[in-house]
C-alpha cells in the first residue's frame, strides 16, 4: 500500500512521527471506541500528551513550546489520527491550536506568561469561541457585546459549537466592543469561573463524539480589561490569520482520516469473501480503492504544497481554502466508499469506518464552510 509523506519531510519529521505513533497506539487506540461512545476522554490525557512531547509541537521554545514549524504540527497530527484511531480525541486534544495563536502573536507578555505555559503542560484546556447561535460564517456580524466599564469589559451574549468548551479553563472569545462590522470586533480571554460565564449546554453531535462541544452563555460577565488581546476593535485580522492555519490543520486531518478509512477498506476487501472469492477479486472493488487512493494522494500533495508555502512565510489564504475544500471533498468521498466496501458492516458501530464517515461530515462545515472557502477563493482570484 502506498502511503507517502511530503517530500519536504526530514529525518526529524520521521522521528517525531515515530514518537507520536508510539504515544497514540499506547495511550489512545486501546480506548478509542470507549471514549467515543462515552462522548468524552479523560482530562489526564492532556497532561499525558504534554509529557509525551505532543502538546508543544509548533510553539516557540521561549514560551514553553517544543519548537518546529507547521510541517511538524501536520505530521504529528496525522500520526495522532492514524495510530490513535479516534478523530474526536485528536480534535479535543487539539483545541489549543486555534485558541493560543492570537495570544502568542498579539498578547501582552503578562498574558503569555499566564495563559500559555499551563496549556502547553497539559494542566489547562483552551478553546476558541467565534461562532454564535445567530451565525458562524459571517464573523463580522457577531453579536456578543463587551462594554467597557473602567478596568473590566461587561460581556453579554452567547457562543455555540465551541470545541472543548465544556471543560475549557479559558476561552479566546470574539466580542463586539465597537460599532457594526469587522472594525468593531475584539478578542477577549474569558476564564472559567468568571461570574456570569456558564456552559449552557453540552451539544450532542453526529461525529467527533469524544470531543466535547459546548454552547456558552455570558450574562453581565465582568472580564478584566487586562484580558483583551491586542488593541480594542482590532480582533478581526487575528481571527482571519488564525483561520488560514486552522484550515490547513483541518485539511491534514482529512488526509489522515481518509488514509485510515482507505487502509481499513483494503484489509477488509482482502478478508471478506463473496461469490467464492475475496471481494478484492472484483475489479469494480479494486477500482473503487484505486479512486480512493488517487484522490487521497492529490489532496495530500496540495495540502503539503500549501503547508510548505506557509512555512516559508507566504500568506496564502486562497490556497489554504483550496486545500481545505480539496481535502474535505476527498475525505467525504473516501469515507463514503469505505462504508460501501464494508457493506452492512460499514453501517455498524463496531466498524471504524462507520465512525469515520460521521467524523468526515464535519470538515466541509467547521473552520469555515465549503461555500465560504469558495468565497475566499473568488476574492483572492480577483472576481
Amino acid at each position: 500500500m502506498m502511503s507517502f509523506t511530503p517530500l519536504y519531510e526530514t529525518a526529524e519529521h520521521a522521528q517525531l512521527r515515530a514518537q507520536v505513533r508510539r504515544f497514540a497506539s499506547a495511550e489512545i487506540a486501546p480506548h478509542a471506541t470507549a471514549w467515543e461512545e462515552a462522548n468524552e476522554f479523560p482530562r489526564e490525557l492532556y497532561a499525558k500528551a504534554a509529557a509525551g512531547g505532543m502538546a508543544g509541537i509548533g510553539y516557540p521554545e521561549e514560551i514553553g513550546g517544543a519548537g518546529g514549524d507547521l510541517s511538524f504540527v501536520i505530521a504529528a497530527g496525522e500520526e495522532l489520527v492514524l495510530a490513535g484511531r479516534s478523530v474526536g480525541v485528536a480534535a479535543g486534544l487539539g483545541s489549543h491550536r486555534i485558541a493560543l495563536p492570537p495570544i502568542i502573536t498579539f498578547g501582552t507578555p503578562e498574558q503569555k506568561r499566564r495563559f500559555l505555559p499551563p496549556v502547553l503542560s497539559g494542566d489547562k484546556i483552551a478553546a476558541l469561541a467565534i461562532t454564535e447561535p445567530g451565525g458562524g460564517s459571517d464573523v463580522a456580524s457577531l453579536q456578543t457585546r463587551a462594554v467597557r466599564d473602567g478596568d473590566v469589559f461587561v460581556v453579554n451574549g452567547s457562543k455555540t459549537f465551541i470545541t472543548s468548551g465544556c471543560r475549557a479553563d479559558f476561552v479566546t472569545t470574539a466580542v463586539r466592543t465597537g460599532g457594526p462590522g469587522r472594525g468593531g470586533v475584539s478578542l477577549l480571554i474569558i476564564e472559567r469561573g468568571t461570574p456570569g460565564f456558564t456552559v449552557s449546554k453540552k451539544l450532542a453531535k453526529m461525529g467527533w463524539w469524544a470531543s466535547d462541544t459546548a454552547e456558552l452563555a455570558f450574562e453581565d460577565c465582568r472580564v478584566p480589561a487586562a484580558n483583551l488581546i491586542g488593541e480594542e476593535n482590532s480582533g478581526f485580522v487575528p481571527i482571519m490569520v488564525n483561520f488560514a492555519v486552522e484550515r490547513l490543520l483541518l485539511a491534514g486531518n482529512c488526509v489522515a482520516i481518509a488514509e485510515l478509512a482507505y487502509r481499513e477498506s483494503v484489509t477488509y476487501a482482502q478478508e471478506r469473501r463473496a461469490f467464492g472469492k475475496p471481494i478484492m477479486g472484483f475489479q469494480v472493488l479494486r477500482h473503487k480503492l484505486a479512486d480512493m487512493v488517487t484522490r487521497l494522494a492529490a489532496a495530500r500533495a496540495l495540502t503539503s504544497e500549501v503547508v510548505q508555502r506557509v512555512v516559508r512565510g507566504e500568506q496564502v489564504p486562497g490556497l489554504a481554502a483550496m486545500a481545505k475544500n480539496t481535502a474535505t471533498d476527498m475525505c467525504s468521498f473516501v469515507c463514503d466508499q469505505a462504508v460501501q466496501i464494508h457493506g452492512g458492516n460499514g453501517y455498524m458501530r463496531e466498524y471504524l469506518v462507520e465512525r469515520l464517515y460521521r467524523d468526515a461530515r464535519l470538515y466541509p462545515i467547521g473552520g469555515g464552510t465549503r461555500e465560504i472557502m469558495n468565497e475566499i477563493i473568488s476574492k483572492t482570484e480577483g472576481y
Partner: protein
Amino acid sequence: MKILVPLKRVADPDNANKVKIPAAGDKIETTGLEWKPNPFDEYALEAALRLTENGQTPKVRAGEVVVVTFGPKETEQTLRAALATGADRAIRIDTTDDKLDGDLVARALAALIEKEKPDVVVMGKQAVDGDSNQVGQILAELLDWPMATFAATIKEEAGALVVSREVDGGVATMRVKLPAIVTVDLRIVAPTSVYSTKTAATFKYNDGVRFAALPAIMAAKKKLLVEIKLADLAADQALKVEYKAFQAPPARKAGIKVKDVTELVTRLKNEAKVL
C-alpha cells in the same frame, strides 16, 4: 558512570507478515521492510539513561551513554533516535547484517570496549529477529567480566550493580562488580526498576521507554556520531554461524467456534491432542 549500549534495528515486529522469504529459501528478503529498534535494546537504553541521571532532572547528566550499532549508513537513523531519547554520542560500525553473527558482533564489541573503556555494557537480552540471545554472554567471556543476564531491576552501588533477575519460582538477586555486562528483560522499564546512586529511593519513573520531544530530536542532529570500519575492530571476520535455510512459519488456520465446554474438551482431546 560510562555506559555502552549496543543497539540493533530489526524488522518491525508488528508487521511481521511483511517478512518474505524467496523460493530458494537461502535468505530473508529485507527490501521494503519497516525497521524499528529492537525493543529490548530500547529498554537497555532507557535503563542506561536512568543509571546516568537522578530521575528528577533528566537533562542533568550524571554519566555518559554511548550507543553503538552495526550496519549500513541508514542504520544511523536508529542511532539518531537514541541520541534524541537522551544518549550522549553514537558509533556506527559499518557493515551489513548478512556479514555478521553473534560471535563476530561480540568480538568487535570487545575491541571497541578496549578503546571506550565503559564501566558497564547494558544491552538487550536478545534481538527479536534472530532471538539468538548470545552476544552479551560471549562478550562477558571475551572480556572476562562479570555478567548479569535478563535483569529485571538494577540498583547502582559504589563500584557495583545490584541486579535482580526473574527465575522460575522467584527472584535471584546478584551483585556484580564493575566493569560488567548486564542484559535486560522488559521489566527493566517499570517505574521503580532502575536507581542510580543519585536517584531518590522514592522516585518513580513513568512506565516504559521515555518519549523524545521535538527539541531533543532537533538537538540530536548535532550530537557526535562517528563511523568505524568493522575491519578496524575485527581483523578476522569469519563467521561461526552459518544459516542453512529459512522457512516461513506455516500460515495460521482459521479458528473454529465451539458450542459448549463439552465440545471444547472433546476437540482439545481428540483433535488438538493437548489434553
